[in-house]
């Protein structure tokens, strides 16, 4: 056993940090301080910069434009991006679709779809959830019927993140109505400009827009856009959900949030002093910090565990459960740090993410404070999406404890 990070990996971190510091455009960096979803243009610009360095998708195989970094280095890279508050990239394309295409896609699909992702040109959405299917994906009903060399897609997807940006969507669709629920599902790539697609924004309780509903009405999709084998969609979905075992911990995000809370609390007046010196608040922050440390070291264990290592799997299972809880707690604590203003709606100064265009704002000037209350509200979703905490506990009880 050796728990030290090797000097080469520390040097790698320094290299990444220096690159970001030099290359991240200042205006994007400033917007990154705000707790809003990254703007489409910022993501595109930043992806192109990363692409010039070959760092758009480090976790893809090198032959598809990725790298051969170790799991630890891939983690360090993401960690430094979060530290710098670089734009949050198109995770659906990079983390979900990319690995599936690299593994199961045809050479034509790989050649056609992967490069635009690397260059930030195509934004992808994930079309899994449907109304009524929630955490129970096998019950999905969107159908794709083969007619000649096209699938005709009908149905509805929901909770589609960033679909208002989306150029393409990879969707689970039912191509065989007679097979068992999980066996009739295929993995289909659909151009969002196709006739018959309607998007409906779902404003969320933070008054922000990231979720959408998508309706498919006789949408024609070329049969060549089906990935892998028909009826294998379920196994590809499971592949992508387990492929990245540590992302759901969002630990680098939460580390950044803890630092943010400290920054805000050091500036927040509390009586004649500052909030960071209030023992009760400081203890809450310290507790959060300790839990985040424990989470990060759990990530380290998973990064270094073999794929089929039982202990590694056990630890991986807790990452989403606790990572999501800490993510929300960090956001709530940031709002608490702002006191009265943490209870207020703070519109994005760039004019995005506005449901009610009333121009009202408490007028915070600290970039770190902007959007904090929206984040506190939005993070309520963390323990719901991607398998609710209740589902995670059942998984842990059954798969690890054998209950």
């Amino acid at each position, binding site marked *: 056993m050796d728990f030290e990070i090797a000097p080469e990996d520390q040097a790698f971190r320094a290299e990444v940090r220096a690159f970001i510091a030099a290359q991240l455009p200042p205006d994007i960096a400033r917007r990154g301080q705000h707790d809003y979803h990254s703007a489409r243009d910022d993501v595109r610009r930043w992806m192109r910069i990363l692409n010039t360095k070959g760092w758009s998708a480090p976790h893809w195989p090198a032959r598809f434009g990725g790298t051969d970094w170790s799991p630890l280095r891939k983690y360090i890279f993401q960690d430094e991006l979060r530290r710098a508050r670089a734009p949050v990239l198109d995770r659906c394309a990079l983390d979900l679709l990319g690995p599936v295409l690299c593994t199961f896609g045809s050479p034509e699909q790989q050649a056609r779809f992967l490069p635009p992702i690397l260059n930030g040109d195509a934004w992808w959405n994930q079309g899994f*959830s449907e109304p*009524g299917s*929630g*955490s*129970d994906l096998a019950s999905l009903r969107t159908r794709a019927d083969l007619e000649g060399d096209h699938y005709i897609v009908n149905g509805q997807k*929901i*909770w589609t993140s960033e679909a208002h940006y989306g150029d393409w969507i990879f969707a689970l669709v039912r191509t065989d109505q007679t097979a068992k629920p999980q066996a009739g599902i295929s993995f289909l790539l659909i151009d969002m400009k196709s006739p018959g697609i309607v998007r409906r924004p*779902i*404003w*969320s*309780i933070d*008054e922000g827009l990231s*979720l959408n509903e998508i309706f498919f009405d006789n949408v024609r999709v070329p049969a060549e856009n089906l990935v892998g084998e028909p009826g294998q969609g379920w196994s590809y979905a499971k592949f992508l959900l387990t492929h990245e075992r540590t992302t759901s911990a969002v630990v680098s995000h939460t580390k950044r949030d803890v630092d943010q809370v400290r920054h805000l609390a050091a500036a927040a*007046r*509390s*009586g*004649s002093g500052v*909030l960071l010196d*209030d023992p*009760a*608040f400081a203890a*809450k922050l310290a507790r959060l910090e300790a839990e985040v440390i424990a989470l990060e070291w759990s990530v380290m264990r998973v990064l270094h565990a073999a794929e089929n290592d039982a202990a590694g799997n056990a630890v991986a299972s807790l990452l989403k459960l606790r990572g999501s809880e800490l993510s929300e707690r960090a956001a*709530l604590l940031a709002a*608490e740090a702002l*006191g*009265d*203003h*943490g*209870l*207020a*709606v703070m519109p994005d100064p760039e004019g995005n993410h506005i*449901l*009610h265009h*009333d121009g*009202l*704002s*408490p*007028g915070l000037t600290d970039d770190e404070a902007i959007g904090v*209350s929206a984040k*506190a*509200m*939005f993070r*309520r*979703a963390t*323990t*719901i*999406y991607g398998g*609710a*905490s*209740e589902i995670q*506990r059942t998984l842990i009880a059954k798969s690890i404890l054998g209950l």
Partner: protein
Amino acid sequence: MDFNLTSEQEALADSVARFTARDYTFEARNRLIGEGTGLDKRHWQAFADLGWLGAGLAEDAGGYGGGPVENMIIMEGFGRALVLEPFLPVALVAVQTLAALPPSTLRDMLIAEIVAGDAIVAVAHGEIAARGAPDYVETVYEGSRITGAKSMVIGGHAASRLIVSARSPEGLGLYLVDPAASGISTRHYRLLDNQHAVDLAFENAPVLETLARPGEGEAVIAAGLAHGLVGVSAEAVGAMDAAIRMTRDYITTRRQFGTTLSTFQTLQHRMADMLVEMELSRSILYQGIASLGQSGVQCTRALAAMKAIVSSAALFVGRNAVQLHGGIGMTEEYAIGHYYRRLFVISGQFGGESLHLKTMAGLSQSFWTEPTSRPSPIMA
């Protein structure tokens, strides 16, 4: 002791329920949010016409003879319906602050105007550095002028008059101020629950009248805040109760994995815990009301305990109501998220759990301290 509503109180509760059922459907409320002021003048007139603006005020102070129980009934009903108008800051905090002043023509006139619905008066007392602590005031009164800043004055955007607390060497005074006067700048914003509030900056701003002289303001403002704490706690109980019922109804109909969500034991137990939090909040709310007639220290402890419990319960119930709804609970277009937003704001309003625990810690009262012969009751 009697935990039952009188027939008059029953009638009041029914009246509130009828009003909110008719005028405060979720759709109607959404329209009001869209209008951008959080205040419908017809609603406000209805509050006046129905006697609610003076329902919790003694007759000799210009009210209709009720007390904190009547306020509780209204606020609980408003909590259930997520009423947006600044009833609490005006009809509870401002009115009870005024009522704690010695009788005077000015005081009686202000109360009469508020009760009639003709004036909206808000108390500008809290400051950003106070974080809810009632006794931390930096704003200064000197030479008939006020300089300083006040934070999150709910309803302040609609107020024709402000009651501003400010410090002099002799102590805290209260001043009647015209918000349109020179030297006052206002920042209007919306809270997460769609209530409207303002931050105020005073730079040698003139006062219209002195309401409480320096050193006499502390007890007066404490009386107003005490009613505010009770009122917001009652509102929380109403909102929690409604959120729990809504969640119960949702999970008993929503099907997943071939059954209704309500058959899952962990969800059942979560709902039991939510109910417990709500009922404990209601219990300690009663205690808070009882404390309004007690001496200063006992009342301070009782209200701090109340708000500490209510703050954490509000967050717990609100967060879990969304959790049990799943994705749909996160949407603007579905009601439960608005309950969470209201409960979130309530959790921090008048100070959060930490502040009130700190207040309690400073008192160290035994449970069996004899109630003394009420030396300094917090309310008249």
